[in-house]
């Protein structure tokens, strides 16, 4: 400890110098950012503003997206680097699916007599009017060219992506191989790339070459409300527009499934040149060859048929929705120029980017971006940013289509169109109404504020406001204002440089012997001198193993405090809870008939859950303002998915049962997902007993209701289904009190602990009308250290949770046991098996990892619920 205290200022400057030296072009490739060993964690939020629907007020919220990303880079040896990346996006809300003249009235109702405030995607089977110039007329025969978007909402969806990178460095070159997968319910992508770097000209010039390949499958379940675009022929299902397909349609368990494949090849070349002591320039060229299904399965194009031979000033037509058709080949070129200039005197850097992109879809796009990176003082940096983007329209973009022909419609008994035949040769080969292919410009501005803390930890927060307007297109001629919208995005980034602290300390030590710059991990004797909160109060193996913090099971929260004032810790905690199998009543599984008759509070159950998974990613931020108190902030990101199946006898097919049957189908034919920010925990931990081999601490905590409790299903058949199940909401919705008391002890290679914790809801109901049950939990564990750095643990857990109070106060369609509050809470017994490891020395010193599998022993549930299958916990922590 004394080493660092007395040299903290020196350490900081040495650290800066060391990093600066490492960052010298040539010593470290210019295209590689960050430290040698680092962890970056990002949270981002994106939200669009309301669309202009020409007077119709949409009851759907605009689209929002929550994103998290974690990246880690580790140097396996002097020349071998390994990187991992994980991303998750969750989005929900409404976006445009088509465009039509306001006079068509397509955005106002669904034709079934229900009032839907703007709107359901009812696009077909409307009678419309035109004048002789084929301009749309309203019902009174007055010309009205105003266009309006048709908005449709989507249930929450989640995308997960994982990828890796392996790199090998030579003195003047580097080769990286990378690959990964991205998974959504309707889009599955696999990709790989290889990049090479070569420094030459005394390392003033760097050449980067890359080649990447992506193979993506679309498998989209088409909107129930869009299925009228699809009709059944003798040869199977087909879209109304059958001319140019690079996708397949099929019926799958009652759903209409659209599937297609696309492949992308992308070679890139870039050249970085140091111009002088204060400036550098990067020139890049990229080419992308894309082939296959590149359309959007959820977008439609509105088509109006006008029968030829009509006389008079007013022509009548009929509208239908078509799936969009895009070419199955796209060649895109991008040229980019980046210039960075140091502003001497201000110690700032001006970055300027210009990109020009053009393709054989006729989309020409210009992007200008400038960042002014201004270091202030004390590690603070502020970066204002401005960006302008402009694109021309794709050659096949059209807001809607008109065709002079009379199709042959096929009607069902109730008068709805179920099929049609028409002359496709009278339509363009390709058409899309996706506004992203229209002509427009965007202007955005933002600010990034970053703070470099000591010991290699930094935090960065950014906000950007973005406006999309047809009138902003370079040179004019953009889409009309009906398609304009605004959005904003904010994000926070936590960066942990795992090597910087160790680098600096090791540098201090080795500089006492000689002045050579040494990398870490080469000198194990430096371990005893490291100022490390994990180690500074013990030097022996026994003390390592006895440290509660390295031996507590991964699933135990609040298991340790920080040692002394000024210590800090950053960690990530992942927990996955799984449920599945036969529904239980109490501790016994019951038949479907029993569930159907008794599981829904005296009403009939129509479905029952078959599985449910919950993933939680928590950020642990700990800081000790004094020796006896540790503060802890714990934001969470959660996602859930759930499947159900129908039970009991099928409903009679009557008009009265139509809506109910559609809602049952919606529940049982789709897996449901939700995700986003969960509740945020804030805790204060107090040392009550602090002996060398026994410790006791108490924790007082509050959980803030930052997780959503108002997540709803999307409409189906124009029916508002209302709230998702209670268990699929992201938080409790109430302020919760979370106290706990924890005891830990150790002797030789053994350590043990016990904890009591509780959750008391401080409010009777949340904004959606209910409050989750209180929780009490007790747990005890024992641990044995197999090696200096490795230990195993076993523990027992008993948990009791009360039932949900109150119920949803808005539209809600309960169908199964999960929808009734009496079927919540219970008493649970588990046994846990864990393994813990920490890195005692070397470049990655201070990192700890732990895993635990929690195996259910017995469930005694209230009412009717799915049994638990088990829970996985994994944690990473870095103390400094």
């Amino acid at each position: 400890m004394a080493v660092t205290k007395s040299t903290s200022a020196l350490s900081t400057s040495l650290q800066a110098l060391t990093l600066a030296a490492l960052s010298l072009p040539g010593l470290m490739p210019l295209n590689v950012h960050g430290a040698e060993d680092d962890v970056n964690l990002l949270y981002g939020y994106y939200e669009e503003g309301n669309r202009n629907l020409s007077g119709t007020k949409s009851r759907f919220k605009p689209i929002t997206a929550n994103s998290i990303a974690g990246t880690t880079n580790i140097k396996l040896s002097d020349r071998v680097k390994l990187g991992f990346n994980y991303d998750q996006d969750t989005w929900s809300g409404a976006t445009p699916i088509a465009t039509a003249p306001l006079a068509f009235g397509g955005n106002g109702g669904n034709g079934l007599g229900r009032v839907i405030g703007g709107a359901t995607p009812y696009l077909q089977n409307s009678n419309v009017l035109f004048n002789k110039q084929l301009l749309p007329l309203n019902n009174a025969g007055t010309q009205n060219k105003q266009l309006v978007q048709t908005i449709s909402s989507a249930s929450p969806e989640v995308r997960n992506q994982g990828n890796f990178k392996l790199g090998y460095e030579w003195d003047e070159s580097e080769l990286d191989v990378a690959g990964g997968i991205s998974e959504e319910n309707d889009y599955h992508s696999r990709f790989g790339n290889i990049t090479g770097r070569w420094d030459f000209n005394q390392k003033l010039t760097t050449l980067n070459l890359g080649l990447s390949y992506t193979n993506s499958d679309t498998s989209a379940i088409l909107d129930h409300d869009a299925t009228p675009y699809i009709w059944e022929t003798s040869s199977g299902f087909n879209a109304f527009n059958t001319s140019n397909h690079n996708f397949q349609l099929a019926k799958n368990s009652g759903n209409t499934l659209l599937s297609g494949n696309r492949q992308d090849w992308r070679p890139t070349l870039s050249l970085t040149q140091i111009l002088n002591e204060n400036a550098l320039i990067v020139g890049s060229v990229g080419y992308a060859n894309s082939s296959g299904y590149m359309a959007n399965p959820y977008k439609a194009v509105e088509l109006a048929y006008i029968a030829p031979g009509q006389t008079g000033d007013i022509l009548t037509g009929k509208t239908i929705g078509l799936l969009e058709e895009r070419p199955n080949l796209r060649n895109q070129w991008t040229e980019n120029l980046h210039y960075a200039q140091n502003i001497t005197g201000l110690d700032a850097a001006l970055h300027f980017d210009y990109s020009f992109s053009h393709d054989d879809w006729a989309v020409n796009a210009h992007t200008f971006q400038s960042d002014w990176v201004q270091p202030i003082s004390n590690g603070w940096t502020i970066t204002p940013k401005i960006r302008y983007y402009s694109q021309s329209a794709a050659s096949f973009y059209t807001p809607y289509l008109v065709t002079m022909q009379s199709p042959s419609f096929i009607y069902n008994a109730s008068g709805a169109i179920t099929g049609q035949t028409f002359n496709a040769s009278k339509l363009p080969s390709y058409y899309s109404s996706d506004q992203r292919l229209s002509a427009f410009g965007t202007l955005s501005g933002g600010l990034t504020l970053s703070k470099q803390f000591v010991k290699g930890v930094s935090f960065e927060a950014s906000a950007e406001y973005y406006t999309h307007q047809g009138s902003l297109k370079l040179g004019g001629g953009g889409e009309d204002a009906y398609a304009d919208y605004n959005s904003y995005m904010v994000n926070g980034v936590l960066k942990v440089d795992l090597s910087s602290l160790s680098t600096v300390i090791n540098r201090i030590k080795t500089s006492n012997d000689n002045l050579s710059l040494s990398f870490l991990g080469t000198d194990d004797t430096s371990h005893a001198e490291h100022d490390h909160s994990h180690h500074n109060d013990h030097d022996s193996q026994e003390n390592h193993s006895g440290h509660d913090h390295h031996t507590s099971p991964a699933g135990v929260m609040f298991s340790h405090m920080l040692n002394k004032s000024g210590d800090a810790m950053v960690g990530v905690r992942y927990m996955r809870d799984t449920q599945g199998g036969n529904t239980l009543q109490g501790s016994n599984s019951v038949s479907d008939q029993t569930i159907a008759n008794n599981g829904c509070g005296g009403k009939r159950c129509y479905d029952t859950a078959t599985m449910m998974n919950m993933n939680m990613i928590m950020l642990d931020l700990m800081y000790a303002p004094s020796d006896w108190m540790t503060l802890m902030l714990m934001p969470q990101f959660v996602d859930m998915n759930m499947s159900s199946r129908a039970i009991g006898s099928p409903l009679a097919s009557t008009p009265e049962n139509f809506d109910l049957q559609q809602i049952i189908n919606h529940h049982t034919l789709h897996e449901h997902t939700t995700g986003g920010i969960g509740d945020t925990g804030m805790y204060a931990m107090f040392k009550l007993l602090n002996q060398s081999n026994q410790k006791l601490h108490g924790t007082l905590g509050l959980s803030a209701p930052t997780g959503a409790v108002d997540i709803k299903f999307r409409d189906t058949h124009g029916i508002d289904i209302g709230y998702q199940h209670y268990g699929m909401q992201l938080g409790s919705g109430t302020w919760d009190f979370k106290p706990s008391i924890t005891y830990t002890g150790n002797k030789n290679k053994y350590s043990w602990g016990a904890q009591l914790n509780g959750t008391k809801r401080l409010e009777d109901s949340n904004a959606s009308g209910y409050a989750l049950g209180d929780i009490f939990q007790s747990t005890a564990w024992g641990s044995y250290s197999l090696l200096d750095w490795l230990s195993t643990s076993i523990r027992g857990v008993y948990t009791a949770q009360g039932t949900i109070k109150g119920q949803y106060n808005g539209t809600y369609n309960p169908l199964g046991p999960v929808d009734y509050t009496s079927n919540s809470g219970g008493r649970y017994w588990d046994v846990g098996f864990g393994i813990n490891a920490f890195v005692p020395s070397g470049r990655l010193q201070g990192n700890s990892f732990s895993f635990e599998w929690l195996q259910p022993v017995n469930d005694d549930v209230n009412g009717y619920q799915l049994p638990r299958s088990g829970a996985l916990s994994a944690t990473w922590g870095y103390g400094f």
Partner: protein
Amino acid sequence: MRITQQKLLIALLTICLSFSGCTTVAPWQRGTLAKPQMAPDPHPVRNTYQTHIYNSREATTGMSSAGGGGCGCN
């Protein structure tokens, strides 16, 4: 238009390469270039996120290399 742009880029790259013949910035003169604010991408994590959003709302994919990214269907 396209040919003009490509020619412009080739010209720029040629200029870059030509610098390699005449510029001399010794390693000990590169201290300014090594500052974090002079990194070619001073906010890489932020930019990766923001580019992901731009790509889902604009018709071009820019220079971003391969990598899932989803279909941006919404």
